[in-house]
C-alpha cells in the first residue's frame, strides 16, 4: 500500500493556500468538519473563498473569524434560530463578496468538477433573477441545446482547491465511508483538487473488508490527507453516532448576533481542540 496520509490537524491546514476556494462537508448543523475549522481559525490562512450548497454553523464560524473573502452558497441559514448571524452581517457590510447560488446549480457545478468536464447542463432556473447575477460573473450561461435548440442553463465546473470532509471511518490512505446522509460530499471529494478527510475513527483494511459489497465514499486516489478526529463534527451532528448540540449552537447564535462570535469560538470551539 502507498504511504500513510495520516497527519495532524495543523499539518492538514498547511495544505490550504491563502486565496484558495474551499468547501466543507455536511449541511447547516450536520457533519461539518469543526475540528479542522478550529485549526484553520488558529492558523494565519486568509482570503479564502467558500462554496457549498446549504452551509450553516461551519460557514458562520469561518466568517466570524474573518477567514473568507468570498462566499458562494444556495442558502446560508441557522434555520429555527434565525439568519446566519456573521454571514448576514459580513454580507450586508460588504466584508465578504456573497454570491447566491441555487441547489441544482451547485450540484451541477460539482458534477462537472467531479467528471472533469468544463460545464454541466441543468434543468429549471431559467426566469430567476439569479441568472443575470451569474451571467455577469461568467459562472452560468443560457445556451441553445445543440440537439433540440431549446434553452438550457449550463453551469461552469466547480473545482474547489480543497474539500474538507468529515467521515465516519477512513483507513490511513483515505479509503473512507460516510454513513447516512451524504449531501454533496461524495461529489465534493471528486471535484476538489485536494481532499482532507477528518474521520471519527481510523480503521484498518480488515474493518473495511467487511464492507466489500458496499461503495467507498472516497478512495486513496481522491485523498491528500487523513486526520483522526473523534467527535470532530461537534457541535454539529454525526448521525448515527451523536446528535447536534443545539444548546451550544444556540449559545453561539446569541453571542454572534451581539457581535461576540469570536468570544464564543475561543472559549468553546478552540478550547475543545487546542
Amino acid at each position, binding site marked *: 500500500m502507498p504511504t500513510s496520509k495520516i497527519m495532524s490537524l495543523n499539518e492538514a491546514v498547511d495544505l490550504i493556500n491563502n486565496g484558495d476556494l474551499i468547501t466543507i462537508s455536511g449541511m447547516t*448543523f450536520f457533519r461539518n468538519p469543526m475540528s479542522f475549522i478550529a485549526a484553520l481559525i488558529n492558523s494565519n490562512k486568509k482570503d479564502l473563498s467558500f462554496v457549498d450548497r446549504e452551509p450553516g454553523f461551519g460557514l458562520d464560524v469561518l466568517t466570524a473569524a474573518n477567514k473568507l473573502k468570498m462566499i458562494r452558497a*444556495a*442558502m446560508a441559514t441557522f*434555520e429555527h434560530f434565525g439568519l446566519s448571524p456573521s454571514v448576514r452581517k459580513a454580507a450586508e457590510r460588504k466584508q465578504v463578496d456573497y454570491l447566491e447560488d441555487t*441547489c441544482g446549480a451547485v450540484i451541477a457545478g460539482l458534477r462537472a468538477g467531479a467528471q472533469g468536464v468544463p460545464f454541466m447542463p441543468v434543468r*429549471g*432556473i*431559467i*426566469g430567476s433573477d439569479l441568472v443575470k447575477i451569474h451571467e455577469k460573473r461568467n459562472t452560468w450561461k443560457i445556451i441553445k441545446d445543440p440537439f433540440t435548440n431549446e434553452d438550457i442553463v449550463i453551469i461552469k465546473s466547480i473545482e474547489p482547491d480543497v474539500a474538507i470532509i468529515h467521515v465516519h471511518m477512513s483507513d490511513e490512505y483515505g479509503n473512507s465511508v460516510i454513513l447516512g446522509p451524504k449531501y454533496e460530499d461524495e461529489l465534493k471529494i471528486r471535484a476538489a483538487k485536494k481532499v482532507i478527510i477528518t474521520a471519527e475513527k481510523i480503521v484498518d483494511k480488515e474493518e473495511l473488508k467487511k464492507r466489500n459489497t458496499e461503495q467507498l465514499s472516497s478512495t486513496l486516489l481522491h485523498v491528500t490527507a487523513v486526520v483522526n478526529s473523534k467527535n470532530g463534527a461537534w457541535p454539529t*451532528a454525526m448521525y448515527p453516532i451523536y446528535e447536534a448540540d443545539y444548546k451550544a449552537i444556540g449559545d453561539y447564535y446569541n453571542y454572534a448576533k451581539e457581535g461576540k462570535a469570536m468570544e464564543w469560538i475561543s472559549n468553546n470551539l478552540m478550547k475543545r481542540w487546542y
Partner: protein
Amino acid sequence: MSARPTDIMIKCLGSFIEDKDYVYHGLDSLLPQLAMVYASLYLKKDFIYHSVAEPFLTDPNQVMVRPSTGDPYSEQGNIATVTTIDAFDIAAKGKMDLMYFGTAQIDEEANINLTAIGNYDNPKVKLPGGAATAYLYPIVKKIIIWARHDPRVLVKKVDFATGNGTTRINNNLKTILCTNKALIEFTKKGPILKAVLQGFNIDQVVSNTGGMKIIVPEKVDTINALNEEELKIINKADPNGLRYEENYG
C-alpha cells in the same frame, strides 16, 4: 382545540398533499414538516415522505421536530438513505409532486424573493438565500408557499425574483400561498383569495398587503380551528411548541 394561526397554517399546508404524491421539504421548514405529519396521520394521505435530511420513507409517527428540519434524528423509521441529489434528479424528470417554500416577499405573479430586501449588490437585508427555489420553482407540480401576512411580504413586485412565478402560472402549475391569515391561489388572473383562517375576515386579508391586489371571489371558505385530534397529532411531533417560536401567532 387550537385556533392559533400557526396551527391553522399547518392544516392549510397539509391539505394539498394527495395520495401517491412525492412530497419533499427543505431546511428551515418546521411548518411543512408538521404539515406532512398532519397529512399522513390525520388526513390519512398515503404519500411518499422525503426531505433534505435524506432519510427515505420516514415514519410520520416517529417525526419529532428539532431546530433544524435537516436533522436526520428528527425523521426516523426510514428504510434507507436517499440523497437530495437523487431527489432533485427525480424532480428534474418531472416526478416531484409537492414542495414547500418559505419566502420573504411574494408578488402578484407569484414571484418569490428569498435573496435580498433592497438591491442585490447593496442589500438592506441579506436573506438566507433561495436554496432550491430558483432550480425547482419552474419544475415541481405543486408548490405551496408559506409566509407572514404583512405589507412587507405581500407586495406588488418583489425586489428580486429568486423564483419566477410567471413561468409556473403560464404552465398551469399549482401555486399556493398559505399565510397566517389566508389561503391564496395564484392564477393567470392574479392572486385569488380561496379561504381565510378562522378568526380573520376578508378585509383584514386584502388590506394587509404592500400593493398586492388579491381578487376576492363570491365564495370564500374559512379554514377552521383545529379539533382535539388534529392538535394532538401535531403536539406529538412538536411537544414543546417549537412551531410557535416561528412567530406566526
